[in-house]
């Protein structure tokens, strides 16, 4: 039997309980904000979009019924909302182009923790390597390690198969490993 507190919150939220709605809001505002900002690269747009998104959730609460995975559901709906808004802001672009032209999911050294299990390379170097990945790889890495989504949840959010999520992660790390090896050789040669 799988009853999480979150499912109970969702149940009361659908019933129109404002306390449950507030709990949902507080639980997800930050993580969705960070995600939206990475997609859009625009603080004002992300905040507007997030506010509209939560009002939309409340207004349509009766239509949701039971949601299997609340986390991935909120991420995927919010992702769609941000793209829609981006598209509106750039009327001359079509949907696919809007995706292509969004902020490139770039990371800054400040976002990378100093202590890494995986590697001992400098934060600035790791940031550079991460930013050299494809947008899709960066989004997968972000959702997995920043937002803490499982590969299954990521596959729902990004609309790709579970296997593609794993392949994308694997590809990203192979690239990182190769780059870090040549980086290591490079720094030895320069020493």
């Amino acid at each position, binding site marked *: 039997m799988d009853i999480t507190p979150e499912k109970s919150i969702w149940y009361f939220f659908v019933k129109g309980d404002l306390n449950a709605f507030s709990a949902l809001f507080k639980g997800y505002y*930050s993580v969705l904000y960070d995600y939206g900002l990475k997609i859009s690269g625009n603080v004002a747009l992300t905040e507007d979009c997030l506010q509209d998104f939560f009002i939309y959730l409340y207004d349509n609460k009766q239509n949701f019924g039971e949601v299997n995975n609340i986390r991935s559901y909120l991420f995927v709906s919010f992702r769609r909302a941000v793209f829609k808004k981006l598209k509106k802001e750039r009327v001359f672009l079509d949907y696919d182009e809007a995706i292509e032209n969004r902020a490139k999911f770039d990371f800054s050294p400040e976002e990378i923790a100093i202590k890494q299990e995986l590697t001992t390379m400098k934060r600035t170097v790791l940031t550079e390597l991460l930013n050299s990945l494809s947008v899709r790889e960066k989004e997968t890495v972000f959702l997995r390690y920043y937002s803490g989504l499982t590969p299954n949840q990521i596959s729902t959010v990004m609309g790709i198969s579970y296997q593609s999520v794993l392949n994308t992660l694997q590809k990203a790390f192979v690239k990182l490993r190769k780059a870090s090896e040549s980086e290591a050789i490079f720094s030895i040669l320069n020493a």
Partner: protein
Amino acid sequence: MKEDLKPLLDNLLNDSSFRNWATKSNKNDMAFWNSWINKNPRDIETIYAVKDIILGISFKKKTIEEERVNEKLGMVLKHINGKTGAENQIVKKNIGWSVKGIAAIAVIGLAFLVLTLGVFNTSDVMVHKTAFGETMSLTLPDGTSVVLNGNSEIRYDKDTPRDVVLKGEAYFKVKPKHTTDAKFWVNTQDLRVEVYGTQFHVNTRDEKTKVLLDEGSIKLLLNNGASKKMEPGELVSYSDGNDTVLHEKVDTTLKYALWREGTFTFNNINLKEMMKYIEHTYGLPSEFLDKSAETKILTGGIPSGNLEICLMAVQKATGTRIVQKDNTLLIFNK
């Protein structure tokens, strides 16, 4: 060849023992996988890929400050409430003054919202809240310890931490102030509990307040103006709404169900009441498929905080089956 690697990657990723190897957190697992790798050198590439995926990248999260989130929440709630107010006005035009009740409710709702927002804005009020199914142990500034049950809230002014307001359910261990004899107060919608130093339990659900005293002595100041002294082992139940007081000694014949320090304690209550209790704490309503199960009597104590264990114990004690379907607990006889 490549096709063979894919399932391996998936298998390793979901193997907790392999995860222990990757994170170096279990010696036995490390020994096992080290020798496994020696025997399977072919798979070394996949193994390192999985290790990378498990270890991943550690990010510093720049989560937004709580104040900012609350501010945004306030804006959204205002918007939502504004809309319901407008809807009610339209209704009022159509049906006339018969909707005054709804309008009154909207006003109360608005007042509640203003109150809540007020709390968000004044940093002098401390609020601790639990979600459904969550419990929280707190120590107040004066050393008093409080355990909040699920779906409950306690609030107090920073300047007067010994005067708290409770909604829901909590267990208090009040720290006595011998030097000043300062009292401690718990306020609910029905009454005010006056305390020196003692252990007791307060429950404000079902439109009444129940107080059970375990140790020491307390005085209740009821909303109707009356006051009541309580002895250890006594249970008082009072509702401001219909002004009824029950004052009883807890013994083997008394009917009660309480939650104290992480345990549901109940005596001679029927299954229907028990399930109502679970609905309040976990947010899951029940439906009796066999009506006869409603009147089965329970006595005992079970650990709360874990719904599965709780339901297992209830099933065993009553000879029923409880199954969850679409966020409802279905109950039938075995």
